[in-house]
Structures are given as C-alpha cells and as structure tokens.
C-alpha cells in the first residue's frame, strides 16, 4: 500500500510540475505574440527597427564610487566619464585639450583663466548647468579633505587654506562665464581640469544627498544613471535632454564585472557581452582569428624601463649607460612577453602625450657598438652587476623576471655578467628608492597625460629620493622642466619638453623598454569605439552597425 501511495504522490507532483512549466511557456509565447503585431504596425510607419541599442561592456571589476570626485580607481571613472562631463575634454585618443562644457577658454598671464560655458545644458535632474553650478562644484571640492577628494588634493596642491593650494578663487560672472584665479601659474592646469575626477555634478543633487551622492550620481553627460547591482552590473541609459541632440547613439550601456580575463573573452564569443576590456596579450590571436570580433588597442600612457643608478659605478659613466642601451634587444622582449602589444620605448614618456619628441632616433640594438662603447670606457673585459627584477606583474611589465632573463642574456653577449635579484614588491621599491640597486626594472603610468607627470616626476633632481629612482641629476634638464611648469603657451612648452628629451636621450639615465598597449575586443558590428589612453572611454558616439 505504502509503495502505491508514494508512486501516486510522485506522479501527482510530476503532473503539477509539467502543467506549471507548460503555463510558463505559454505565458512567454503569449507576451511575444501580443507584442509582435505592434512591432509590425510600427514597422509600417517607420522603416527602422525598434529594438533598443544596448551595449554590454565587460570589465575586470566593479566601480567603487560613482561620484567621480571621490574615486581613485579606473573602473569608477569608466562609468562616471559617461554620466558626467568636464569643463574641458581630452582628444578622442590623446591628451590634447578640447572643448567640453566650456566652449572657450583663455588666459593672459597663466594666473587668470576665463572659461565661457556652453549654453542650454541641463543636469539630468532638470536643473540648469551654469557658472554658479561650476563655482559650487569647486567650492565643494576645495572645502573637502584628502580622504574625501584625493585627486583634487594631488592635482591642485591641497585644499582651501593649504599653502600649496593653487586655486585662489573661482567666481561666476553672469550665467556663462567662470573665472579662475591662481596663486601661481600651473602649466598642466587645463589638463587637470579635463581629468575625469573633475566632472561637474548637479549642485542640487550633491547638496541634498551628501555622502550618498555616489549612489545616485547626476551630471550633464550623455547617459544617466539607472541602477547599480554591486559587483555585478551598472546600468546607464540615454539622457534624452542631452545638449547635443545627435548623441548618444546607444539607448543603454551596461557595465558588467567579469573578473577573469579568459572568461570575459568567452562571454564576448558567446555574445553575452559586446565589448571586453583587458584581453590577455596571448589571446589576441583568438580575437583576430574570429570573424565576429575585432581587436582594439588602447593607446599607451605608461613606460616600462630599466633604470641605471647613475651614482653607482660603472653607471656614473655615460658611455656605459649608452652601451647598455645598445645591448638590449627591445623588439624580442616585446614580441615574446607583450605578444606584440607594446611599442618600443625611446623616450621616458609615451607618444600619446603632447610634447613627445618623435625626432629622437633611439638607441638601436647593436651589440658591436655596445662593446666599442665599453672599450672606450675602459671596460673591454666587461664587469659584474646586479640586475633587479620586479616580483609582480605590472601594467607596463607583464613578467619582470622573465624579461630580466632576456636582458641578462643580452648583457652576457657584450661581456657583462648580470645577476638577477628580486625582493617582495614593497621592499623592492624601498631599496631602489634608496639607490641600492645597480640596475632595476620599473615603470610608471601617467595620471593626467601631461609631460610634467613623466619627465619632472621621474627624472628631475628634485625627485631624487622620491620617484627619481635612477638618481639622475642634470641642472640643464632641471631648468628646462621648471620653466615648462609655468609656461602656459602649449607650443613653447612642448618645445621645452622636446629639448629636455634630447638631453635625456644623450645622457641615457635609463634604458626605456616599452610602452604597453592594453588590448580590448568587441563585436565586429560595433562602431566608433575609441579606447582612450586614460582608460576612461567616452561612449556617446558608439553605435551598432
């Protein structure tokens, strides 16, 4: 009896389940049926598909803040760059200065900047964008603290009342003019203004929401915030009252966090996402070999180099440093470890930065010449040295120790015996900073795309003991770099940086190795996607074929 009971219960359950499932399926067909005729009737009137254009952008991690002023991480700026706009914009794929929320800007003396604002712009909450809104944003930032607005502090030298604070005052003149008065000239000022952290937010919203503004960000950008599912997706949709009625082309963008690089590429292959950030260099062939996909290269904003501690013999001799430059086969390193996803570096800064001196020839791979130079320096029998390799992969150097082995072999060819040395990362930085290494591998990623952020920070004598790990000191270079810091004429300033790069090239304080170009992949029908060197991509123009 018992058996029978059990069986009948099981049967009954199955019956219930199947009716339930049947109900579901008929439900879905029911809804599609009811929508189909509507679509047809619309098609009759307008010859255009009514499907919303949705871009799913797969990336490695979630954002931390959607309030750009508070954020410091690239994943936050990737989203805020499309919700907010800055007074000035960077070029589509470089860091030149273009109009943004301001249409005109000028300065006489580098102390007073006048910005003319775009008219007819509204925030996504319906309030007006005007000069007063800009002033309120700067008031908010300059009255903050370093843990609140870290980028404001580092780009403008602190906050109100701090001695280093560059901005004297920000005032509105009428509705459409904003005047900045600086305490002293700051040449990268316009570049700083164009950085993602300084996107203009709706004062009504941030005054109301305070710290919670990050959960409901409101700017003037082409997309407005919809939803944030933590560690999963962030959705933004077309802002219909955007000042440029042509833009954005897409109806919706969904940023999806998929931490594993291979899994992200798989999701692109299956069509779950449309665009994948962070493609492994080793996977680039899978993308180029797939007719449904296209590969994008993000222009480089970094440099990976072999630093030579200029105060330690024999590297105090310029000929030895030049010999090192001729001895290393950069092309093989790039082919083997960057899968071609990098440019050979000849200068301490990447070509996407204005002021880059492309006239410099660079040191070619020439072991014979290197031997000659060593001979001139009285080291024809070679010498023994320590070669420091970083223990962790960095964006500018995927595998430090492996690259060091290639360098070791290159150096052996010209009679130099290099012993590879490595430490835990924090210790490594500390020891190189103290000048304890003969030669060390290191690199740098730019902040605001300004030449000063590379040349002055990495190679000026002021920064010995800080980021000038090579202990390179040259008074002429120092004078040029200091002059460039206050030179507000872009052309003159670039001329100064070109000069500085020439001297640095001749003196060879480092062996610049590579500017890595991070890879992305997208569906083949994706249009107008231009990856930006800063890592924050504007998606307003992006469209599907």
């Amino acid at each position: 009896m018992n058996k029978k009971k059990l069986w009948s219960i099981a049967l009954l359950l199955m019956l219930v389940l199947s009716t339930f499932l049947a109900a579901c399926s008929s439900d879905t067909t029911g809804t599609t049926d009811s929508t189909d005729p509507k679509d047809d009737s619309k098609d009759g009137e307008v010859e255009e598909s009514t499907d919303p254009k949705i871009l799913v952008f797969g990336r490695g991690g979630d954002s931390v803040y959607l309030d750009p002023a508070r954020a410091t991480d690239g994943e936050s700026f990737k989203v805020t760059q499309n919700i907010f706009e800055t007074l000035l914009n960077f070029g589509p794929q470089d860091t030149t200065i273009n109009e943004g929320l301001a249409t005109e800007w000028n300065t006489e003396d580098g102390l007073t900047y006048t910005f003319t604002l775009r008219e007819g712009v509204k925030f996504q909450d319906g309030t007006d964008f005007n000069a007063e809104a800009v002033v309120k944003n700067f008031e908010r930032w300059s009255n903050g603290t370093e843990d609140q607005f870290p980028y404001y502090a580092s780009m403008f030298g602190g906050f109100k009342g701090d001695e280093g604070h560059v901005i004297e005052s920000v005032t509105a003149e009428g509705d459409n003019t904003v005047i900045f008065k600086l305490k002293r000239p700051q040449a990268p000022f316009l570049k700083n203004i164009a950085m993602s952290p300084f996107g203009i937010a709706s004062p009504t919203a941030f005054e109301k929401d305070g710290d919670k503004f990050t959960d409901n960000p409101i700017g003037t950008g082409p997309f407005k915030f919809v939803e944030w599912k933590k560690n999963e997706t962030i959705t933004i949709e077309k802002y219909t009252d955007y000042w440029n009625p042509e833009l954005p082309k897409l109806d919706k963008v969904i940023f999806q966090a998929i931490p594993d690089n291979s899994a992200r590429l798989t999701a692109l292959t299956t069509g779950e996402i449309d665009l994948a950030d962070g493609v492994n260099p080793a996977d680039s062939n899978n993308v180029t070999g797939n007719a449904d996909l296209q590969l994008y290269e993000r222009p480089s904003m970094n440099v990976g180099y072999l630093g030579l501690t200029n105060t330690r013999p024999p590297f105090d001799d310029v000929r030895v440093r030049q010999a090192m430059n001729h001895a290393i086969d950069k092309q093989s390193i790039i082919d083997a470890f960057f899968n071609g996803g990098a440019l050979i570096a000849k200068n301490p800064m990447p070509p996407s930065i204005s002021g880059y001196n492309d006239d410099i020839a660079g040191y070619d791979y020439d072991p014979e010449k290197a031997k000659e130079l060593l001979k001139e320096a009285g080291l024809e029998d070679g010498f023994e040295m320590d070669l420091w390799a970083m223990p962790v992969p960095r964006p500018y150097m995927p595998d430090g120790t492996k690259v060091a082995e290639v360098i070791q072999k290159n150096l052996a060819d010209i009679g130099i015996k290099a012993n590879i040395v490595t430490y835990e990362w924090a210790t490594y930085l500390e020891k190189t900073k103290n000048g304890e290494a003969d030669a060390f591998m290191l690199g740098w990623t730019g902040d605001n795309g300004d030449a000063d952020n590379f040349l002055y920070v990495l190679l000026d004598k002021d920064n010995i003991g800080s980021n000038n790990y090579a202990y390179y000191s040259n008074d002429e270079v120092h004078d040029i770099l200091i002059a460039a810091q206050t030179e507000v004429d872009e052309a003159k300033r670039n001329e100064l940086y070109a000069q500085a790069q020439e001297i640095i090239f001749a003196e060879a304080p480092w062996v610049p190795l590579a500017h890595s170009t991070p890879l992305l992949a997208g569906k083949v029908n994706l249009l107008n996607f231009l990856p930006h060197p800063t890592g924050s991509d504007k998606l307003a123009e992006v469209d599907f074929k």
Partner: protein
Amino acid sequence: MDYKRGYTFLFLTFCSRIILEYPATFSLHNALDGEVKTMLHYIGKRLWQLVPVLLGMTFVVFMIIRAIPGDPAQVILGQQASESAVKALRTKLGLDDPWYIQYFDYLWGLITGDLGESMRTMNPVSDEIWGYLAATFELSLFAILIAIIVGINAGIISAWFQNSWFDYTAMILALVGVSMPIFWLGLMLQYIFGVEFGLLPTTGREEVRNPVESITNLYVLDTIIQGRYDQLGTVLKHLILPGVALATIPMAIIARMTRSSMLEVMRSDYVRTARSKGQRMFWVVYKHALKNAIIPVLTIIGLQMGMLLGGAILTETIFGWPGVGRYIYEAINFRDYPVIQSGILVVAFIFVMINLVIDVLYSLIDPRIKYD
C-alpha cells in the same frame, strides 16, 4: 572611547564565566521534560560553545590580516597619493592606534551589533554583505541539490551493483571529480556548453539586457514573486554551469561516502531478513538500508554545504558571480580590514550553524541518537 574597552573586557569576563558554569545554570530549571528538553539543552549548549569559537576566530583573523604587508590607506589611495593624504586617511581609519586598541574597538562594535564599515566604500559591512550572501546562498543551494541528488543515487547504485561496470565508472568519475581543478573545469564547461554548443550562458546571474528586479536578491525567488516566468528560465540557465562546477567536488565526495556506508549496511542482518521476506530489492535498498546508511553522509553534506556557503572564490571569479567569496577576496586585495574580519566571521557563523542543524537532524532520522 575608553569606556568601550572597559565594557568589552567586562563582557568577555562575563561570557567566560557563563561558559564555564553553563551546566550549573541550566540544571537549575528542570521544568521541561523528556526529549524536547534534552534537545533544547543541547542546542543551548552548542550555541554557547560558539562564543569562544567565534571570539578566537576574530582574534586569529585580526592578527593574520595585519601580518600581511601593505597599508590599507596606501592601497585605497593608490601609489601616486601624497604622503600627507595617506597619513590623514590612516588617522581617520584608526590605523595609527596600537593593535589591541583596534581589536577592542572592533569587538565593542560586534557586541553592539556593528560589523564595521568598509574602508574602501565607507558603507556598513552589514548592508553590503547581504546581497553577496544571497547570491552565494542561491548558487550553493543549487549546487548542493545537484550534489545530493546525483551523488547519493550514484553511491547507492554503486553499492547495490557492487563491482559492476556502473560501479567502476561512477567511482572513477568520482575520483576524477574530487581531484578536478575547478578553475580548469569551469573554463572547459564555458567553452563546451557556451562557445561550442551555444546552449548555456557562461557568466553572471541573469540576462543583463533584461535584468531581474531585485527584491530579496535571491533571483529565483524574485522572479517567482513577480511572476516573471520568462526571467525565471534565464536565471535558472545562468545557475547551471557555475552550479555544476561547484557541485563536482561535493558530488564526488557524497557519492563515495554513500557507497561505502551503504556497502556496510547492506551486509547487516536486517537487510538480509528483509530480502528473505521477499521484499523488492529497490525498497530494501532505498527504504531500509538507506535510512541507516545516511547518517555519515549527512555529516559530509553539512560540512560541504558550510564550505560552499563560505563562497567559492574560484567559481565565483570564473563565472562572474557576485558572491561572498569574491567580496572577501577583493577586500583582501584592498586590505579592507573590517570587510575581511566581519565577512569571515559571518561565514564562519553560518558554517557552525549549518553543522548544528545537521546534528539536530540526526535524531530526527535516527531516534536512537540521543543528546546529553
């Protein structure tokens, strides 16, 4: 601040006394009688024993994460941050205090029901962790269901037809399953079922172009509540690949355990008697034998379930699943101390609670098991 430390100390002394004198306290009221009383008594005792376990754990985790090099303030602000900014943040986060003061402040927070604030996002951990726990819970439940259904049946049939081809195949597969690197398995599953056959989605919890409106953050439940059965289908589809990847190891362990446990029971006298009575083999196996063989399997299931709920970092990473394992893992990368501490505490708490539930279940299945 000082009074907090004083109270914390008093509270700890109080706890230790209660734990030591527990039997005396509870023998006072012997009003309840019989089974229920012993059961409640047992549960109460186990809950009290939890206090020193969790307390010890907070201490160990607290010390370990401070032993790894790396300064949270520096990591949060990035390499380019100025020294003054790092210093200001350290002070604000209380990282300049001696470790024991930090520890007591943390404990005081726990006693007052405060799990702390994430150093990175500045949100309360108790708010943040809920969504991740729900995602992990949904996936673990699905995985453990697969593991139980497939594992127990495979184990039973293997024992029933011992030394048959099914037995050999199942046990070889179980051996492979136990030793399978999840990372590799996950990528293979994605490749085969996602790319090659295009049958199943490979990443995330939902079809992102048609998102689920989250209420409980248990998407299966949410879609049912809202009557969105079209979405229920896609949500279930998204569960399959990560669920199978996650289920593999528990499934193999359960299958092996069930088999060995069943083999033992099948040799016992009452099984022989049942068979000689002429009862059908199916009922002998599934009804009489299984009831006695299931107890050790239940222990294993409890342990595995507890482990799954701790969040499976690898599975969650490969399948882009926003679970608690990834939450804690990312917190470690950012040296987000409060999230690591409280996250592990919550996970450990769940682990212990599940095992308690399993222990209580024993007596429901086998009334011969008594608690003292």
